[in-house]
C-alpha cells in the first residue's frame, strides 16, 4: 500500500515543474488563476470593510485560494458543498452570490439566503459539526440513487473534534459518496498543527476508517483540483469516500479580531508567501504563453469592478426589517411568536412617536 506521505509526493510531482499539465484545458488553467485573483481581492476588500466598520468580524482566507478554487472548480453543479466560515471562495464558485456572502458577514439575515439551485449548505461555525451533515447528505444521495457527491471543507483543528471521527466512520461504514477536504493551514486560531495530533499527517487517519486519504500541496491549485475532482469521480462511481489533506497556510489572522503576531513568527509567514498559489500559477501561465501583462491588468480591473459591484449591492439593501426576527423558526409560526412580533411592532411604532409601548412577554 502506498503511504499517504508518498502519495503527496506523487500528487505534487504531477503538477509541478515547467510542463503544462496534461488533460486540463488552457481555458480552465486561466479560470483557476482568475478565480484565485478574484477571491484574493474579495478577501482583502472584506478586511478593509471590517476595519471601516462596514461589515462585522470576518475570517480571512488569503493564502488558501488554491484550496478554495481547486475545490470550487472540481465540484459539479449537482454536488453539495458543506463549508465553514473560511470558505467564501468555494461557496461563491459553487454559486453563492458574492453580495450574499458579504451580507452574511454584515450580520444580515439576507446573507442566509441560498438561491434555490445552489447546493451550498449554510456556513458551519462550530468546528467539525458539518462533517456528519456531509456524510448524511451523501448517504441520502446514495439511497435515492442520485448522482451527487457531498464535499465538506474543514481545517486541521477540526480533525481533533469527535464529529470528525464520527463523520469519517459513518462515511466509511456506509460507503457514501463524500469527499472530506481538510485545509491544513497549520493553525487553529493560535494552536499549531503539532498540538492537534500526534499523527504525521491528517490524511493517514483515513486508513483507520477504511478509505483512502491523500495529502497534497494545497498551494498548488492544479493539485487540489485534480485530487478533489478524482475523489468526486470515484465517489460518484460508487468508490466511497476520500479524505484529502491539503497543506496550506493562512497569511492573515484567524478573524479580524485575532492578532497572529502573538503566535507566529514573521519568517514563517514569509516562507509560506514564497509558495504563494497565485504567484505560482501566474508564473506558470506566463511560461506556457497563456498570460501577459495586458491580461493581468484587465483582470485586476475586472475583479475590482466585480467586488465593488457586490459591495454596492450589499450596502444598498433596505434597512433591516425587525419582522425577520420571527421568520423561519418553524414552518408555521407559533401564536406566541406572532404575539411577540406584534409586540415588537407596537414597541417600534410607539418609539417612532416618542413613546414607550407596554411591555409584553
Amino acid at each position, binding site marked *: 500500500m502506498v503511504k499517504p506521505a508518498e502519495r503527496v509526493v506523487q500528487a505534487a510531482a504531477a503538477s509541478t515543474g515547467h510542463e503544462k499539465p496534461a488533460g486540463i484545458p488552457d481555458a480552465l488553467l486561466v479560470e483557476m488563476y482568475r478565480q484565485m485573483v478574484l477571491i484574493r481581492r474579495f478577501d482583502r476588500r472584506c478586511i478593509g470593510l471590517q476595519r471601516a466598520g462596514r461589515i462585522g468580524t470576518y475570517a480571512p482566507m488569503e493564502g488558501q485560494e488554491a484550496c478554495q478554487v481547486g475545490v470550487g472548480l472540481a465540484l459539479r453543479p449537482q454536488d453539495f458543498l458543506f463549508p465553514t466560515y473560511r470558505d467564501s471562495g468555494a461557496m461563491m464558485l459553487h454559486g453563492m452570490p458574492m453580495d450574499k456572502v458579504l451580507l452574511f458577514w454584515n450580520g444580515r439575515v439576507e446573507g442566509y439566503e441560498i438561491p434555490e439551485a445552489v447546493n451550498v449548505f449554510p456556513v458551519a461555525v462550530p468546528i467539525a459539526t458539518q462533517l456528519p451533515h456531509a456524510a448524511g*447528505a451523501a448517504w441520502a444521495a446514495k439511497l435515492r440513487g442520485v448522482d451527487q457527491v457531498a464535499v465538506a471543507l474543514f481545517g486541521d483543528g477540526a480533525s481533533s473534534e469527535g464529529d470528525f471521527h464520527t*463523520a469519517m466512520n*459513518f462515511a466509511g461504514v456506509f460507503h457514501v459518496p463524500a469527499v472530506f477536504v481538510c485545509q491544513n493551514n497549520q493553525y487553529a486560531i493560535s494552536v499549531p498543527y503539532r498540538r492537534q495530533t500526534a499523527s504525521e499527517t491528517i490524511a493517514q487517519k483515513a486508513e483507520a476508517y477504511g478509505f483512502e486519504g491523500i495529502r497534497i500541496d494545497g498551494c498548488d491549485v492544479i493539485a487540489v483540483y485534480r485530487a478533489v475532482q478524482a475523489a468526486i469521480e470515484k465517489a460518484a462511481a460508487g468508490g466511497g469516500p476520500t479524505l484529502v489533506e491539503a497543506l496550506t497556510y493562512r497569511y492573515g489572522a484567524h478573524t479580524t479580531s485575532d492578532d497572529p503576531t502573538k503566535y507566529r513568527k514573521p519568517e514563517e509567514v514569509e516562507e509560506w508567501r514564497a509558495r504563494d498559489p497565485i504567484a505560482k500559477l501566474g508564473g506558470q501561465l506566463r511560461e506556457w504563453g497563456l498570460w501577459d501583462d495586458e491580461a493581468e491588468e484587465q483582470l485586476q480591473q475586472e475583479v475590482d469592478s466585480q467586488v465593488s459591484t457586490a459591495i454596492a449591492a450589499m450596502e444598498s439593501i433596505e434597512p433591516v426589517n425587525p419582522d425577520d426576527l420571527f421568520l423561519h423558526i418553524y414552518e408555521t409560526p407559533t401564536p406566541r411568536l406572532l404575539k411577540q412580533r406584534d409586540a415588537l411592532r407596537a414597541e417600534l411604532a410607539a418609539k417612532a412617536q416618542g413613546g414607550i409601548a407596554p411591555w409584553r412577554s
Partner: protein
Amino acid sequence: MAQLTLVQAVNEALREAMRRDERVMLLGEDIGANGGVFRATEGLMAEFGEDRVVDTPLAESGILGTAVGLAVNGMRPVPEIQFMGFIYPGFEQVVSHIARIRMRSRGRFAVPMVVRVPFGGRIRAPELHSESTETFFAHTPGLTVVAPSNPYDAKGLLLASIESNDPVIFLEPMRIYRAFREEVPEGYYTVPLREARVVQEGTDLTVIAWGTMLRETLDVVRKLEAEQGLSAEVIDLRTLSPWDEETVFASVNKTGRAVVVHEAVGHLGLGAEIAARISEACILQLEAPVVRISSFDVPPPPFSLEDWHAPTPERIASGIAEALSF
C-alpha cells in the same frame, strides 16, 4: 381495533409511516435485528430492509448529524436515541444545527426529522437511563417537543411528527411503554401537534401533566373525586414545545387554580414556565398561586432512591389540596 401497548403503538406508527412514504428511514443503535432495546422497531428491518432500518455505529452525534444531511437531502429520517441520558453527545447537533437550519437558511433547507427518545425514570435502570431533561429541548426555539401519554396518542402524534417539516424531539415515556393496553385504530391517522388534550373537564382546578405523569396524576385525581367530590380539569399537554397556551389559559381562567405535575426537576423545569405564563395571563382569574409538583433538584438517583425522587401520589394529592385550600 387492536389492543396495543404504547411501545406497540410506536412500532405501528413507524410501520405505517414507512409503508406510506418511502423517504422515511430509521437509524440508530441496535434498532435493526434487535428491534431496539425496547423493541420499538421490532420486525421493521425484516419488512423494509437494511437501507431503511439502519443499525449505525455507536455515536449519537453521528446519528443526529448524518440525519441532518439525510433530511436536507430528501429523506425523512427518524433517528432513535436509546435513552435520554445518552443524547448528550448529540446535543450540539440538536441545538446548533437541527433547531436552526431552517432559520439559518431562510427556509431553503428544512430538517424534517423525528428524534425518538425514551425518557423518564422508575424502570429500575442504572444511572443516566432515567432522565427527564425535556427543558433542554423545550428551551430551544425551532424544535417541537412531543410526549405522548397513551398508545392512541403515541401512534397519532408520531405520525404527525413524521409529517412535520420541522424537527421533532419525540419523548417516549418508557415507564408506561408496556404498563397498559388501549384500543388503537389500524391504519394511518394523526393527532395534531401543538394541541393539548382536555382529558376530563372539571370546575375546581386545572391539573396539567404529560407522559408518564399524566396517568399517575389522573389516578390521584379520580381517587380524590371519588373521596372528596372534587371536580378537576385534567390537561395532557402532549406537545411540550411550542405548548398549547390557549387550552391551558382557557381552562385556568375557568377554574381559577392550576397544578403542574412533571417528573423533571423543579428548577427551570417546564412547570416553571407554565406557572409563570399562567401567572401573567390569568392573574385576574387566579384564586391561588400555581403549584408545581416535580422531582427534587438532584440528579436522577440510583433506583433504590428513585421512587422518592419522582412525584408520588401523596405529593400530587397534597399539591392539589394546597391549590384548593389557598
